[in-house]
C-alpha cells in the first residue's frame, strides 16, 4: 500500500474510470453478447460516408477502389494496433516503441529473405524473436516503471524507440530496402484492384486477430491475462503471478508487431523510421476500438482505413490524417470508452 501510493491516488482521482481496466474483459457470460445495435449504427454511418463520397467523386470506380484500399489498409492498421491495445489494456502503458519493434521486424524479415527464406516463412522466425525481445524489454526495462505515471512510461518507451531506430540506422545504414514477393500482382475486386501482397497481409491480420481472440477467450493464459487487465490486485489474490502475465502480454504485443512487420514487408519501403508511420495511426485505432479490446482494434483499424481513403475524396489536398483525427476526436468525445466498450 505504502509502496505505491501514487497509483492508488491516481486511480481514486480518476474516479476509477480509466486506470482500472475494462471490466467487460472479465470472463462473464454477459460480455459475450454482441453489441448488434452499435455495429448496426456504425455500419449505417459507413454506408452514408460511402454514398457521400460517391456524390463527391462522381465516379463509382474511385469510390469502390477507395473502399477496397481502405479496408485492406485498415486490416494492417488493426494488426499493428492489436499488439498496442493488448499492452495498453493489461500493462496500462502507452507504448511508443511499438512502431520501432515493427521496424525491427521489417529488417529481420529483410535479412531472412536475403538469406533465401520466403517472406511469409519469415514469420516463423520474426514472431518468436520479437516475442523474446518483448520479454527481455519488459523484464529488463519496463518492469521498473510499472504503475508509474503516464509520462514516465511514455518517455521510457520513447527512449526505447530512439535506441532501436538509431541502432538500425547504425547497423544497416540509411538506404531504403525492400522485400519482393514473387508472383505479386494486381487482383481485381469488383471494379477495383489490389495487390496480392496487400490481400495476403489483410488475411494474415484477420487470422492473427482470430488467434489472439481465441487465445484470450479460450485458454488459461488468456483468462489470466484478462483477469490482470480487469483487476491486477484481484488477480494476484487468486494466485496469478502478475509479473509473468505482464511480461507475457508485453511479449505477445511485441510479437504482434513482429507479425505485422513481416506481413507488411512486401508493401513498404524498409527504413528505420518506417514503423513510426504506423505508430500514430495505431494509437488512434486503439482508442477507437476501446483500449484493451483486440477485436475492437481490428474494427477500429478498418474504420480508420476507410476514413483515410474516403477523407482523401472529401477533402482533396488535405492530408488523409486530418480526416483520421476528425473521426478520432468525434469518437473520443461521443464514446470515450471506444466504440466497443461499454460505459462503466
Amino acid at each position, binding site marked *: 500500500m505504502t509502496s505505491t501510493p501514487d497509483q492508488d491516488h491516481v486511480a481514486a482521482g480518476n474516479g476509477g474510470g480509466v486506470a482500472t481496466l475494462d471490466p467487460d474483459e472479465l470472463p462473464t457470460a454477459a460480455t459475450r453478447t454482441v453489441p448488434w445495435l452499435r455495429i448496426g449504427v456504425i455500419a449505417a454511418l459507413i454506408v452514408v460516408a460511402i454514398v457521400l463520397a460517391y456524390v463527391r467523386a462522381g465516379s463509382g470506380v474511385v469510390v469502390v477502389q477507395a473502399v477496397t484500399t481502405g479496408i485492406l489498409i485498415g486490416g494492417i492498421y488493426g494488426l499493428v494496433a492489436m499488439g498496442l491495445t493488448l499492452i495498453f489494456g493489461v500493462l496500462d502503458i502507452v507504448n511508443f516503441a511499438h512502431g520501432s519493434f515493427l521496424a525491427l521486424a521489417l529488417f529481420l524479415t529483410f535479412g531472412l529473405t536475403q538469406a533465401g527464406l520466403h517472406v511469409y516463412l519469415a514469420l516463423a522466425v520474426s514472431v518468436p524473436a520479437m516475442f523474446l525481445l518483448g520479454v527481455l524489454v519488459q523484464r529488463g526495462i519496463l518492469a521498473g516503471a510499472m504503475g508509474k505515471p503516464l509520462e514516465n512510461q511514455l*518517455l*521510457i518507451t520513447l527512449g526505447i524507440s530512439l535506441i532501436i531506430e538509431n541502432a538500425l540506422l547504425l547497423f544497416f545504414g540509411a538506404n531504403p530496402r525492400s522485400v519482393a514477393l514473387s508472383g505479386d500482382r494486381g487482383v481485381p475486386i469488383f471494379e477495383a484492384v489490389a495487390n496480392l501482397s496487400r490481400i495476403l497481409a489483410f488475411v494474415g491480420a484477420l487470422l492473427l486477430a482470430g488467434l489472439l481472440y481465441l487465445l484470450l477467450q479460450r485458454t488459461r493464459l488468456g483468462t489470466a491475462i484478462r483477469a490482470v487487465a480487469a483487476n491486477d490486485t484481484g488477480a494476484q489474490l487468486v494466485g496469478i503471478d502478475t509479473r509473468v502475465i505482464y511480461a507475457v502480454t508485453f511479449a505477445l504485443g511485441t510479437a504482434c508487431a513482429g507479425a505485422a512487420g513481416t506481413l507488411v514487408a512486401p508493401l513498404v519501403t524498409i527504413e528505420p523510421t518506417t514503423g513510426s508511420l504506423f505508430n500514430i495511426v495505431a494509437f488512434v485505432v486503439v482508442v477507437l476500438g476501446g*483500449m484493451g479490446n483486440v477485436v475492437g482494434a481490428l474494427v477500429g483499424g478498418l474504420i480508420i482505413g476507410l476514413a483515410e481513403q474516403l477523407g482523401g475524396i472529401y477533402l482533396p489536398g488535405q492530408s488523409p490524417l486530418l480526416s483520421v483525427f476528425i473521426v478520432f*476526436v468525434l469518437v473520443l468525445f461521443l464514446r470515450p470508452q471506444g466504440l466497443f466498450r461499454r460505459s462503466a
Partner: protein
Amino acid sequence: MTTTTAPAATTAAGKPLPRQPWNRHLLAIAVLTVLLIPLPLILPPAQASVAVRVLIFALMSIGWNMMSGFGGMFSFGHAAYFGIGAYAGGFLLVEHNVSPWIGMLVGMVIAAAFATLIGFLALRYKLRGAYFALATFAFAEMLRLWATNSEFVNRAVGYHVPLRPESSWWWMQFEPASANYFWIALGLTVIALVVSVQFVRSRAGQFTKAARDDEDAAAAVGIPVMRYKLLTMALSAAITAVAGAFYVQYFLFIDPDLAFGSSVSIQAILPAVIGGVATIWGPVIGAVVMGPLNDVTATILRNPPPALEFLQGRGGLDVIVYGALLIIIVLLLPQGIYGALRKRWSRR
C-alpha cells in the same frame, strides 16, 4: 471519556503554523537570476546558443508542468500552444509588421483561448488519463495538418523573420551571438517561474491541486472544479506560447512541423519529468540537464576519447546514447531529479 485525541482546543494556540516555502523559492529565483546574468559573457557563443535553447525548453516545460503537473491533466499536445505562440509572432511580424512583443501577447491570448476550448470539450466529455492525453495530441496534430495546408499561414513554407539592418529591442533582433537573446529568454523564464510560484501559492493554485488530488472532494468543499481547471490550462498554454513566440525570433523561422510537431510536445514534457513533475524547479532542472545532452553526446562522439574512437562518425549513435540516458534517468529517478533531492532533504 477524555482520550488523548479528544478535542482539546487549548493545544491549538501554542503551536506555530509551519512556514511555507514560497518566499524561499522566490529568493532562490532571484539569486539564480543574478548568478546567471553574466553567463553569456563567459560562455563561448556556440554554448551560449545551447543555453538559450535550454531556457526555451524550460519555458515550454514550466507551462506544461502547470497544467499536467499541478493540474494533473496530462497534456500530450503542448505543441498546439507553442505553435500558436510561434505562428502568432511570425504571422503578425511577417504579414503585418507588428512587433514580436505584441505578437507574443496575442499568441498568449489565442493559445489560452484555444486551451480553454479544448479543456472545455475534454472536461465536458470527462476525458481522463490517456484519453485526455490523446485528445490533446489530436488537436495539436490537427493544427499541424491545418497549417500545412492553409494558405492563410503560408502552408508548409511557414515564415522567415526578415533580417533587420540594425539591432533593435522593439523588433527583438540582435547580432547572432548577442547576449541580449539570452537575457530576454532568462527574463521570460524568470517571469514564468515567478508566475508559477505565485500560482501555486494562490487560491487558484491550491484549488487546482485539490481538484487534481480528488475532483469530487474538491467540489464538495465548494471549489468550482471546471473553472479552475480551465484557468490552469489557459495559463499553462499562455506560458508555453511565450516559448513559441520567442523561438521564432531567435531561430528566425517557423514551419508547421517545428511549431506543431509531436516532438515539440515531447520537448515540453521531457524537462519536467526528468526534473520532477509538479515541482517548481523540476522543469528548469530538467531543461538544464536534457537541453545540452544532445550536444554533449554529439560533441563527445565527434571527437571521442581514444577508448571510444571506433564510434566516431557513425550517424545515429548520439541519439542512441541520448535514448539510453533518458531511460536510465526516468527509471532511476521516477520522481525526477528535484523530486529525489527533496525526498532526501525531507528525510533528514
